[in-house]
Structures are given as structure tokens and as C-alpha cells.
């Protein structure tokens, strides 16, 4: 993977969940989350909430990267996220990468996919809207 973007900082939540940056593809971060007991739902399977957290974090990271060149960094506020669970995420690392579908002035629309060993068979996907505002509101 190319490393043509600076390292991004993940939230305290993302870090304590165990999310790290696996690398960058075309300047977009690919995040990964190892399987461990703190992400487990039913035995041997990722909890849907942990998978959702990875998807959402991948969305924010991609947007932060896209905004990195701007002089002032807007505050990012979640508007909504819809997660589709496609198949059980098993006890192996999960990866996630977002695509910014539309980067507007006040909001961004993203689609995110999570996969495990076979990238062509995503385990979950999400669409999300993020509001971008000045730090004053």
C-alpha cells in the first residue's frame, strides 16, 4: 500500500477498541481491528457494534484525510449512519475503508465497507452523513 498521506489520529474510543491504521490506498486510510474478546458478540464472531465502530471510524478517518489540506479544520458531527450486516465477521482481523461519495461545504456523504480475508465479500457496509461545522457551533 502506498503511504502518501500523513498519519491520522484516532479517537480514544477507536484506540481502546483496538483499531489501527493498516495503510493507505490512494491517500485513503485502511483501518484494521483484530479479533479479541472485547469485540466478541456471539462466540467466535465480531459483535455488530464493534464492526459498526470500525466502519464509522473509517468514515471519519477518510474525511479527516480529505480535509487535511485545509487551513482550518471543521468540527465533524455525526448526522446518521446506516449499517448493513452482510455476513458474520469471524475471529480474524477485519478491515475497513471509506469512499467519500460527496464532499460538500457543510456535509459529507460516505460509504464504507468492511471485509476480512476476501475483499470481494464484505462482512458489513455503511452509509453515513457527517456535518462539518466551525468550532463555534
Amino acid at each position: 500500500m502506498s503511504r502518501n498521506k500523513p498519519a491520522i489520529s484516532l479517537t480514544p474510543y477507536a484506540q481502546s477498541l483496538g483499531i489501527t491504521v493498516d495503510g493507505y490506498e490512494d491517500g485513503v486510510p485502511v483501518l484494521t481491528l483484530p479479533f479479541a474478546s472485547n469485540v466478541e458478540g456471539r462466540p467466535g464472531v465480531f459483535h455488530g457494534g464493534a464492526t459498526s465502530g470500525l466502519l464509522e471510524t473509517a468514515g471519519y478517518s477518510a474525511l479527516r484525510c480529505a480535509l487535511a489540506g485545509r487551513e482550518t479544520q471543521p468540527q465533524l458531527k455525526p448526522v446518521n449512519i446506516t449499517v448493513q450486516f452482510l455476513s458474520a465477521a469471524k475471529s480474524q482481523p477485519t478491515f475497513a475503508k471509506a469512499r467519500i461519495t460527496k464532499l460538500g461545504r457543510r456535509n459529507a456523504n460516505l460509504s464504507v465497507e468492511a471485509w476480512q480475508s476476501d475483499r470481494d465479500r464484505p462482512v458489513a457496509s455503511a452509509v453515513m452523513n457527517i456535518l462539518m461545522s466551525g468550532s463555534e457551533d
Partner: protein
Amino acid sequence: MAQTEAKFEPAKAAQFLLGHGHAGWLGLKFRGSGDNWIELELPWRKDLLGEPDRHVLASGPIISLMDMASGLCVWTKMKKFEAIATLDLRVDYQRPARERAAVIGRAECYKITKSAAFVRGIAHDGDPDDPVANIAGIFMWIMGDTRRVPQ
């Protein structure tokens, strides 16, 4: 894993299901339940923040809270365990939670059909009339699957 007895007792089941794994790591607690609803609590914790300099819970744990509450309210309405899987879950965030506030998640199963269960709910930090988020979820039965806990 959960026992195979047919009857689902929300408080008992929650005690078991919330005691380990992702829900255990988040520290989710059972608050109450009714015919078709269940209420859980996500305690505030420093390592679950969304931003390093604001003492506000991240949105990720709130999705986990609502996913867990959603699954539990389906069984609560059915009054029995049946293997289910989350098909999709939508979360609309109205506002951030207050600093150092725990978040309460209340989910209600409003419709069950032959193939799916429909859930709605809110997350709030003290006042249910001023929610942090609204959610909608759909679950499907996993036929022939004997595992008891949703994803």
C-alpha cells in the same frame, strides 16, 4: 452459551449476555424491560471518548448499546430465544451526549413477521424527551442456527 429453555427472561438473559465479550467490555447494564421493550445503560468512561479533549462518549459505543438493546427487545417481545441476526441498523444522532454522562438505550420491538423483526429506539442521557439519538433496526431469523446471541 445461553441455556436452551424456551422462556426468555430479560433480566436474567441480560445478566448473562452483558457479562462478557464486547458488551462486557463496554460495561453495559440492564435497567428494565416490559412487554416489548428493554432498557440498557452505557456508563461513561474516559477511554470511550469521541474526542481527546471533550468528555463526551463516542458515537461508536452508542451503536453497540442500541444494537444490543435491539436484539434483546426482539426476544423480550417473543418471550423466547431464537437465533437472529441484525440485517441493518440506522442511527440518527440528534446531539452529542453531555459531558461525563452515561447513555441509556431503550429499544422497542414494534412488529414481528414470519421473516423479520422491526425495532425502534432512542438513546438519551437522562431525559427521554431530549434524545441523543433515534434508531431503527431490522432483524432476521437464522433458521436452523442454534447459536443464541446476535452479531
